[in-house]
């Protein structure tokens, strides 16, 4: 009898313990901190709170399950407000991929609205630019590898590699936080990508918007960080309903 009681007690303790430290499945715990992103508010420190991030980008197979349950996001049903013509362009129809598309490759050709809806359906959300960049500045060993040449070289060499979106998730390195594929597979949506302003505030309507590269570089806190610069430039050129071949997403969750 005593033994049973003890067993019950132990299992209760065990269960509550695992609950307390429960980590959402397939998510990595990110300890927040303050850091200086490429573009800050006057290059000031940005505070990132603790959160969880998906270990892998969302795959074609994951996304198929989602559209099976949510008719409005099917390839044939999605409305023009939420996605352009290329939405799921590498899928044959609502439920089959084209022959060369692998189920465990990251889903691409998804709009910002679609990515947002997917994350919300899972009780998650899209990461902010600051959160994404915070996790992505880690290499295998350290939290902030931005000053390490090998890290920047790796990212830049990926930008030159063609068709990495055909690779499967998990095929790049696992970073300090246990997160894969932030660099080397696909670009990823962020919740506030439209906070990147290339034209600048049009205080002077005659100013030439084509000069954005120059004015943006002046705002950059680390002019050496060319790799990150390209990411910000891409975000600045996106529109929410665009669905691009090499743009996928992953979700995060508040702690």
């Amino acid at each position: 009898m005593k033994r049973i009681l003890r067993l019950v007690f132990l299992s209760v303790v065990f269960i509550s313990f695992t609950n307390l430290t429960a980590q959402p499945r397939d998510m990595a715990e990110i300890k927040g901190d303050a850091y200086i992103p490429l573009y800050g508010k006057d290059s000031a420190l940005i505070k990132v709170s603790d959160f969880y991030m998906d270990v892998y980008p969302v795959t074609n197979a994951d996304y198929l399950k989602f559209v099976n349950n949510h008719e409005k996001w099917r390839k044939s049903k999605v409305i023009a407000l939420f996605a352009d013509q290329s939405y799921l362009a590498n899928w044959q129809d609502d439920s089959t991929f084209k022959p060369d598309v692998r189920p465990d490759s990251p889903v691409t050709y998804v709009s910002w609205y679609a990515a947002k809806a997917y994350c919300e359906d899972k009780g998650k959300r899209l990461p902010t630019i600051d959160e994404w960049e915070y996790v992505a500045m880690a290499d295998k060993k350290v939290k902030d590898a931005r000053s390490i040449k090998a890290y920047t070289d790796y990212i830049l060499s990926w930008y030159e590699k063609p068709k990495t979106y055909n690779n499967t998730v998990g095929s790049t390195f696992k970073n300090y936080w246990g997160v894969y594929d932030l660099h080397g597979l696909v670009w990823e949506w962020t919740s506030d990508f439209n906070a990147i302003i290339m034209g600048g505030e049009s205080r002077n309507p005659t100013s030439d918007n084509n000069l954005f590269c120059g004015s943006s570089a002046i705002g950059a806190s680390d002019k050496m960080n060319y790799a990150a610069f390209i990411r910000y430039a891409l975000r600045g050129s996106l529109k929410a309903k665009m669905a691009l071949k090499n743009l996928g997403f992953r979700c995060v969750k508040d702690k």
Partner: protein
Amino acid sequence: MNKLVILLVFFALAACKSDSKADKTSQKSTTGTTYVCPMHCEGEKTYTETGSCPICKMDLVRIAELDTKEKNENEEISGSSIFNLTSKWKTQNDKTIQLKDLRGQTLVMVMIYTSCDAACPRLVADMRNIENKLPKSILPKVDFVFVSIDPETDTPEKLKQFAKDNLMDDNRHIFLQGSMDGVREFANVLSVKYSKISPIDFSHSNIISVFSPNGELVHQQEGLGVDYDNTVRAVKNTVK
């Protein structure tokens, strides 16, 4: 022969039309006319005379008119309409609405924030100039909508004050406070970019957008103090 058939059909249709008209007038005379607030501020409370709602001050509408309006609203909206958005907003009168509640009016929309002293006053002036250039006759069919990009600061009270300060506190000018998420989404619909640069300041693109009564984007002007003629023309074209 063919011509005759067409003629007959035409007459039949014309007859139908005048029949239904006669029906309506007879109905009116028997039931009397009742009026109701279009926003249903007091639930289903009805009035026997025209006037304005004591709560939201909107003009009361005849019940029959409301019926046909609501019937129109059941028609399908297109896939590119902003009325597909389900986010909820608060007006300067603290009323909760969805964008589709604005259906039926041509919408001239802009995103601003009330503590802004650089570009926003000029954007508001641009909105006023567009309004001034429109013929008086079509103004009742146009709403001017100001969406705050700073929903944390811009409460309905703040927006109300802002509306008053700009002499825009009436039915035709709608000021909206959304959720952080709703605002981000709406900005994406308008292709407006914005970013908080300090606790009280934002940088943002200066875009005025015109939507048809069914919520489709028909025109955008970007920049401050640009030529309004195209925008004014776009508004006129959407009003039937």
